[in-house]
């Protein structure tokens, strides 16, 4: 079969973009941005023509702590994944940022990509990752007085406990 996924993300690739390691996962380019340079890299990518933030989501890698990442990037518990789209060049680019459990925060993309407003709120709601300087960081899908962040891997499923602060079980 000629179409085996050629380059897995574990295969290190010397290519970089704006100083960040660039790998190809199943034919899709992925950039691993260090957290402290996340805002700068996103600004540079916007200037490169990646004008639309198609998607912003996160993954909780609690159960895969020691996964291999390219370059100097150290694996952390959370990972924010941003899918950028360039309409002009008809290209996509995925940016993955490691976010540590001890300080789950990232600068907001609101000023570059206002369309990420709801997506960042969803990530905050589901994973508890805080986006600093976001105009309205509050829960978007869960009720306002919900406790916990449901898409975290240590958030239990299987039973339905009473989760509201005021309720008496």
């Amino acid at each position, binding site marked *: 079969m000629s179409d085996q996924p050629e380059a897995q993300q574990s295969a290190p690739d010397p290519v970089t973009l704006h100083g960040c390691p660039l790998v190809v996962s*199943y034919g899709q380019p992925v950039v691993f941005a260090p957290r402290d340079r996340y805002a700068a890299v996103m600004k540079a990518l916007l200037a490169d023509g990646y004008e639309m933030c198609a998607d912003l989501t996160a993954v909780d890698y609690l159960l895969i702590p020691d996964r291999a990442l390219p370059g100097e990037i150290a694996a952390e518990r959370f990972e924010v994944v941003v899918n950028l789209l360039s309409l002009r060049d008809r290209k996509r680019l995925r940016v993955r940022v490691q976010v540590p459990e001890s300080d789950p925060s990232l600068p907001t993309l609101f000023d570059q990509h206002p369309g990420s407003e709801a997506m960042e709120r969803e990530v905050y709601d589901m994973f508890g990752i805080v986006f600093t300087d976001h105009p309205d960081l509050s829960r978007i899908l869960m009720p306002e007085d919900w406790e916990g962040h449901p*898409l975290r891997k240590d958030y239990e499923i299987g039973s339905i406990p009473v989760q509201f602060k005021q309720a008496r079980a």
Partner: protein
Amino acid sequence: MSIVETIRDGNEPAQGLKPRSELTARELLREVGSVLRMSETDAAKLGGVPVDPSEDQTMIINMGPQHPSTHGVLRLMLELQGETVLRCKPIIGYLHTGMEKTGEALTYMQGGTNLTRMDYVSPLNNELVFSMAVEKLLGIEHDIPERAVWMRMLLSELNRMSSHLLFMATNGMDLGAVSMMIYGWREREEVLRFFQKVTGLRMNHNFIRPGGVAADLPGGWRDDVLGLLELIEPRLDEYDTLMTGQPLWRDRLQGVGVITATEAIALGATGPILRGTGVPWDLRRDQPYLCYPELDFDVIVGSYGDAFDRYAIRLNEVRESMKLVRQILDRMPAGDFRIQNKKVTPPPRARIDESMEALIHHFKIFTEGFKVPEGEVYVAIESPRGEIGCYIVSDGSPTPYRIHVRAPSFVNVQCLPHMMRGGLVADAVAVISSVDPVLGEVDR
């Protein structure tokens, strides 16, 4: 105190729309400026948004979540000055059922049943994007049999027709053209009747699956599709007579809910909203998948980005889809409807009766599912509402480690404040309708 510390202390901010007397000019201008991709100072020069805090003649009201024209359970907080909408904030989550969390517990075999319920108006597109993502992880995306690919295109285009016909119905209903509502539902039902014949269900089909489709087309399908096309074509002309050329209809929609190309791109809007602003962006053409490059179709674009453009685009996209369906009918190849790969394909029903191995294989694949190699992919296709994307992280087990759906409506709903700014409350209904959100996929 920074936001990080506030949240750590257990004081989570609550969502809401603050009256402008409690906001700073910077916060107000940031809302406008970021979307136009300019600084607050430049946004202030544009004018339009009164920022005088002494001007407290504004009122904040709730529209929804039970309003009949909010397409489900969308709630809008509107800041009004008289009848003019100054600001608006969509509040969502009333239909949230944790489908992404559920998806982590379901195998790739069962995943389709979950995904198909997100955008319940175009279920086949949801299944398609999920199947394509799984196939990409499995490395079999180029091995899907021809017939399955063409069947997927047929169903996807028919689904686009049924979805846009539903839009015609709800758009008519929201604006008081009640006869249009009846007509739209009637025509959509004809398409759903065909889906029922093919998949067994009107909605939530789980028909497009990783590896192909669930079953072959039933006998007489070609006549059914031809009958459908013959029926709908003149009906679309009737819609033109009833609505497109009608002065009342035009007055309600033209110049309402205007959004520019810059705003739409900054907000991540896709589908008819983006095309309405004159940006010819259609993933079927610009990042082709399936066999779309072999077909001849036009990407419909508007020029003003108003509600009328979005209506006209959808109406003409039904015509384009019909053109595509005709070509698919001519070229539908024969052959298998799913991949003959023991790993993902269960054995045929007849084999189970005669072979113990087939029975075990069938049992294993349905109870345990199949393992998918480690990795992560993002696959996007053009759904009737815009770009629907599926992001899957696999850890090598039969269930996805993380499954995320980029729902077009979830992103498109963010356009509402910018479309409504400065408009009338009565037009708010037209604007919501023209965005055509499906709350099932907004909240997931």
